[in-house]
């Protein structure tokens, strides 16, 4: 397996005193797409929030390319190469589409053309204020902007949220290729399980904040019943294939 980009060890995190994610360990390698699956409220978003520094862990470690991220601010993590597309899309309603691509941190240049290549519809909306875009158009902008940043680790929360089927169908392979070409690691939260598993290398399933199943993507795809069962909290007893 290629070098790991992200390593999470025994992570427990949540809001106020309640732990929403418990004792989670997972890893993402270079050029690898990892799907994080689970029912609503399982704790996927929370996990991504911990990685990008929005939520502080109660226990456990988050390591990016060998460096422990404890104490690193959100913006510093972003500058280290984490691109997070959060649930609310992380856009600025007052800025136009084009302005979003001029909004790099110091010394960063965003590859605007790459975004327009992946989402041709965006190019025509260049000068429209983001707040006026339709939901799907906003999602395209959010994902397009993340891709344009050429990150080391891409965190995609609900990638296909609000996107038309045709776009989703084209987008997922793009993410796959993008990871291979650029060597960036992708942690993908996606509700279309089957679609997600067709592009992912590996998958983790969370239930009520606990890791109940992890395996190679083909294996998960092939075992639908086990997958569904694990969604509802039955800890998988099936043998986990060694992820090499």
């Amino acid at each position, binding site marked *: 397996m290629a070098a790991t980009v992200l390593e999470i060890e025994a992570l427990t995190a949540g*809001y106020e005193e309640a732990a929403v994610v418990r004792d989670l360990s997972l890893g993402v390698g270079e050029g690898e797409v990892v799907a994080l699956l689970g*029912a*609503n*409220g399982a704790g996927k*978003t929370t996990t991504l929030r911990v990685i990008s520094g929005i939520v502080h862990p109660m226990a456990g470690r988050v390591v990016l390319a060998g460096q422990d991220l404890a104490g690193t601010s959100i913006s510093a993590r972003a500058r280290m190469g984490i691109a997070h597309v959060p*649930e609310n899309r992380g856009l600025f309603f007052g800025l136009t589409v084009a302005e979003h691509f001029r909004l790099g941190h110091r010394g960063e240049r965003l590859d605007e053309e790459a975004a327009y290549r992946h989402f041709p*519809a965006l190019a025509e*909306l260049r000068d*429209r204020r983001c707040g*006026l*875009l*339709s*939901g*799907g*158009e906003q*999602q*395209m902008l959010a994902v397009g902007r993340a891709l344009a940043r050429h990150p080391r680790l891409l965190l995609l929360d*609900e990638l*296909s*949220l*609000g*996107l*038309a*089927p*045709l*776009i*989703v*169908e*084209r987008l997922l392979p793009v993410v796959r290729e993008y990871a291979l070409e650029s060597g960036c690691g992708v942690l993908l939260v996606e*509700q*279309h*399980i*089957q679609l997600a598993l067709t592009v992912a290398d590996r998958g983790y399933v969370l239930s009520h904040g606990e890791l109940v199943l992890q395996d190679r993507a083909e294996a998960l795809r092939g075992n639908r019943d086990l997958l*569904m069962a694990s*969604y509802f909290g039955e800890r998988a007893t099936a043998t986990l294939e060694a992820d090499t």
Partner: protein
Amino acid sequence: MTAVLEAQGVSVHFGGVRALAGVDLDVQESELIGLIGPNGAGKTTFVDAISGFVRCGGRVALDGFDLAGLSPHERALRGLSRTWQSTELFDDLTVRENLAVASRRPSLWQVAKEMLGDSAATSGEIEQALELLDLGWAQDVMPGDLSQGQRKLVGVARAIVTQPRLLCLDEPAAGLDTGESEELGRRLRALANKGQSMLLIDHDMGLVLSVCDRIFVLEFGKLIASGKPQEVRGDQRVVSAYLGGAAAEVSGP
């Protein structure tokens, strides 16, 4: 019998942008109608237009009554209820209070009575709506503490609680996974069978194709197809503009 919703030639312009260009759409009694189309096609704008949030040309009638000139809350009082693609809950109120705001339509007199300690009898509507979406456990939670899919459902519950004539749902299944959206579909279907008319917008084709009676397809602000799910799914234009491979994957109802 008059249609629950009758929209004729609905068109909307934003400056130079033409978002809707003469859309005709009707919803009959206890029908579940789907509205689909590519991103930016004008689906949300259509709901904004009929619910009075953007000005539109053409004619919109609810139960035969022309809605022209009515403000959003007046349309809501007449029985046109909607949810929002971006959820838009009342973040300062608990889930239960979110529903309560929508469920009661107090006159000034009732407000005064309530002040004097005569708390209005809570009707069963709130309980029913909470139960329909299995949200009873969350009734005292603040919306900000819920996950995305949970918030979406609260939005749906808030729209249902008014027992509207027409219920417009803007992507209620966004943020739900396949299984959850199937379950939502079953419940919406059951609601329609009980007589609730609905307009459903969603990109989850598994949901839309399996529960809707009829489907309208928008592209660039114009209708490009309408009809029964099987017809729409087979329509070559719809496949190339919107469905792609999804048409093949989803099995019929």
